[in-house]
């Protein structure tokens, strides 16, 4: 619990520091607070946090996911620091505070043992983000993103709530263990099945599975890139962490009413996502579709849940998150020197910023699933987790990986092999050391964990 308390305190401090004359300390303070909470998390024992009516429980899985989310948030704040050097932002404290609040919601999503907490977690995670999405006040796209995210998000939440009500009606309990016991019976009532179905649909919204994905590209494009990084990584992890736990707990996979829907949605997500990513002309939208495809891959882990799968699932999402943060920091850099978000913005980056683009290149290779990176291991474990009876799923992963090469390599090729004199060459602005740090951190961890996955996988045991 102390993790959440520390983060909350940091958020409040940040808000106050912002009012009093301490703006330049806001960002470092937020990073410091998060680092502190990370250390506390490492020291904490796994225990039922009994003071809260046994409603939250820190499992090892939750601990790893919480740690990952905290680290991702720290990286996002580092990217934010690079922006503050360039422009005066009078609202920075508010934004950081909101992000920290939503991080608390994410942690609740990993630790809930009661579906009320699940609902609270979703709301605490989402509401600050509706504000963050439209935080670029004078930008029409940002406003559109905020409104769209708010409408879609609240619809999804209410559908989840409806499903929860039905489940409660059928099982007469809000406790996740009791519900799980009920769902492991051979026969379950229609009401419970319908409830599970609605909860599932709500979560498909949250994780941006097709056909519930329409908000994703618009929100990623409209939201200021720094916060879009947060959306693409931490929010994704949080939604998936909760969904995965719920899916496992709803038990009895073969009979699960969600199973058939899940299979259908995976196929749609991977196929449509991959093909749509192929025709995008804007790097941020491409990343949005790539995140949708990755959602499809992550959903595939749900098909054969077992105890090992948890750690592989974690590895996959870690690889996805680190790589996405790396690419987003390149986008933030390009925006800061006035380049467009189109692929041509990347042209010549390899020559003007060799080391920085090496890091970005590693992130791209990892997303594409090239060996020696976490991305490869993630896909490898994904393939291992599928049995050969599900050969069409394997085919889907393979085909999508092949096509994904084409769209990831558009950035890659632009950076290294373009002859065009794009503005990245003309403008020799140095990359901020903070961005360099973020990209370096992402690239190095992708390679180190890609070579020695034990570092990460053993934490789960």
């Amino acid at each position, binding site marked *: 619990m102390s993790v959440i308390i520390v983060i909350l305190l940091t958020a409040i401090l940040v808000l106050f520091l912002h009012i009093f004359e301490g703006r330049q300390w806001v960002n470092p303070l937020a990073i410091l607070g998060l680092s502190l909470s990370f250390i506390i998390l490492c020291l904490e024992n796994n225990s039922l946090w009994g003071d809260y009516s046994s409603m939250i429980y820190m499992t090892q899985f939750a601990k790893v996911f919480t740690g990952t989310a905290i680290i991702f948030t720290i990286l996002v704040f580092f990217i934010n620091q690079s922006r503050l050097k360039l422009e005066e932002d009078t609202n920075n404290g508010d934004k950081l505070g909101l992000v920290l609040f939503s991080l608390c919601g994410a942690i609740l999503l990993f630790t809930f043992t009661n579906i009320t907490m699940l609902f609270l977690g979703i709301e605490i995670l989402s509401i600050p983000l509706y504000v963050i999405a439209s935080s670029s006040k004078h930008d029409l796209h940002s406003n559109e993103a905020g409104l769209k995210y708010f409408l879609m998000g609240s619809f999804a939440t209410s559908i989840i709530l409806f499903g929860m009500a039905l489940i409660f009606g059928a099982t007469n309990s809000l406790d996740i263990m009791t519900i799980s016991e009920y769902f492991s019976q051979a026969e379950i009532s229609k009401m419970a099945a319908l409830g599970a179905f609605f909860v599932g649909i709500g979560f498909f919204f949250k994780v941006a599975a097709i056909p519930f994905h329409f908000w994703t590209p618009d929100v990623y494009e409209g939201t200021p890139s720094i916060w879009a990084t947060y959306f693409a990584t931490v929010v994704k992890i949080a939604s998936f962490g909760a969904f995965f736990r719920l899916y496992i707990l709803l038990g009895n996979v073969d009979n699960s009413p969600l199973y058939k829907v899940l299979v259908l949605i995976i196929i749609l997500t991977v196929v449509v996502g991959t093909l749509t990513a192929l025709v995008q002309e804007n790097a941020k939208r491409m990343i949005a579709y790539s995140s949708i495809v990755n959602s499809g891959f992550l959903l595939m882990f749900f098909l054969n849940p077992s105890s090992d799968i948890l750690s592989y699932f974690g590895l996959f999402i870690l690889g996805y998150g680190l790589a996405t943060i790396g690419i987003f920091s390149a986008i933030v850099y390009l925006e800061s020197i006035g380049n467009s978000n189109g692929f041509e913005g990347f042209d010549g980056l390899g020559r003007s910023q060799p080391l920085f683009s090496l890091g970005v290149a590693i992130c791209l290779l990892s997303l594409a699933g090239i060996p020696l990176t976490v991305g490869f291991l993630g896909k490898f474990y994904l393939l291992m987790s599928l049995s050969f009876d599900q050969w069409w799923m394997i085919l889907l992963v393979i085909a999508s990986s092949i096509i994904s*090469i084409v769209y990831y390599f558009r950035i890659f*090729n632009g950076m290294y*092999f373009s002859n065009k004199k794009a503005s990245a060459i003309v403008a020799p602005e140095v990359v901020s050391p903070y961005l360099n740090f973020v990209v370096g951190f992402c690239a190095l961890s992708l390679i180190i964990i890609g070579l020695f996955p034990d570092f990460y996988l053993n934490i789960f045991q």
Partner: protein
Amino acid sequence: MLIGLILFPLIFSLMIFILPKNLTKYATIFYSVFSLSWMGMVVKNISSWTNPFFTENYVFSSNLPSSLLLVLDGISLIPILLTQLLIALILWMLLANQKEDKSTYSLIALMHFGLNGVFLCADALGFYIFWEVTLIPIYFICAIWGEGKRMPITLKFFLYTFIGSLCMLVSFLYLYQIQPEGGNFSIANIFNVDMSATARFLVALGIFIGLAVKIPIFGFHNWQADTYTSAPFYGSMLLAGIMLKMGLYGMYRWLSPVFAGPLCCDLQWYIIILCIIGVVYGAIIAITQTDLKRILAFSSFSHVGLIAAGIMTFSHSGWQGGLLQMFVHGLNIVGLFYIVNLIEQKYGSRDLNKLGGIATQNKWLAIYGMILVLGTTALPLTNGFPGEFLLLKSMFEYQFLTALFAGTTIIWCAVYMLRLYQKVFFGEESKLVLSGDSSLSSIEHFILIIFVLGVLVLGIFPQLILGLSESTVLNYLTQK
């Protein structure tokens, strides 16, 4: 011992970035000599020539059912020797060309790392990883320093090989999954499984597609000629000289163990047919080309078809001939690519119609070229002959008809190679040749003499190579 072959290239490839620019040359010389002598030491330390010479195992992760299992036996020794030799030669060529870009050396060293890994690793997952690793540096080399429409061509090459290798990965995954509890990806376990004939066929097909794209075998070859032509000369050398051998080597190590049962027998027949079509088709296309690099690309396609067909007969002469020819083909094709590069550098073109009469201007280049061309056309007492003879023998033992068509390779090869030689070196001196610079530096002489010695020495003593693999091949074939 063996881990050195993998670690040193990796260390060098990272180190070259840190070193100051004026040291690049010395570091590269040191590295090439060092890797050659390390290889020499490995060979010297082989105490018994029975299978396998060395085995080393390094466990990376307890969560992966796989480890870095390195095995050196007769089959891997030959491509490993070839790799060390050619990488050193290619580095010297670059030094002779005054190439100063650090990243080129770094990428070639990375390539060296991947290639050594492919040839040494006896763990399916490790093999796959190294196989993919080789793709990254060659992609960079072709895309940065290539010519013409290099981007779409390189991407096509990348996609082809990537699709192929993913098919291979799925086969390996299947072989792993059907093992009883506690299995792993090591070569001993992965092929030690019971499968239905259909499953065996599909697994073999998956692995074959992965290998066939790299080789390339007819039907999977669409990327090849364009990529060879648009790549810089050292890129073509790496592709034709060594990377192609990855596919052939894979046939020995990773394809042959799954081949059993009636369906696979059919598959074997179809593969051999494809190879033979490639032999004839490549040769005919080569005759019609005017770009020197394209001629070499199709000649290589044609030659490799014969090697693959020989290996697929799973006979003693086919395997031994295949190994010998792998080495020889690597040496000859790289030598020829170097000559083409020298011609292009000195006379500014590699178009057959724009060249001519180089022999009167530059007699040494003509002599070296003649010997290499004869080696490629498999004249007796040159290095091409014994391997081709063994391969054709294996074809005859397999079936008369295939041998009949495969046998035409020698005629075809003579046609396009002699046409090439005649048009480039003989006849009236063209304008370009007269205006070009017709001298060879001592290091260029040195490099070319190594190739020429290779042609002559291996032509007279093929046993030097055949002896290395004899016991391993016998061992493998009796087990099968």
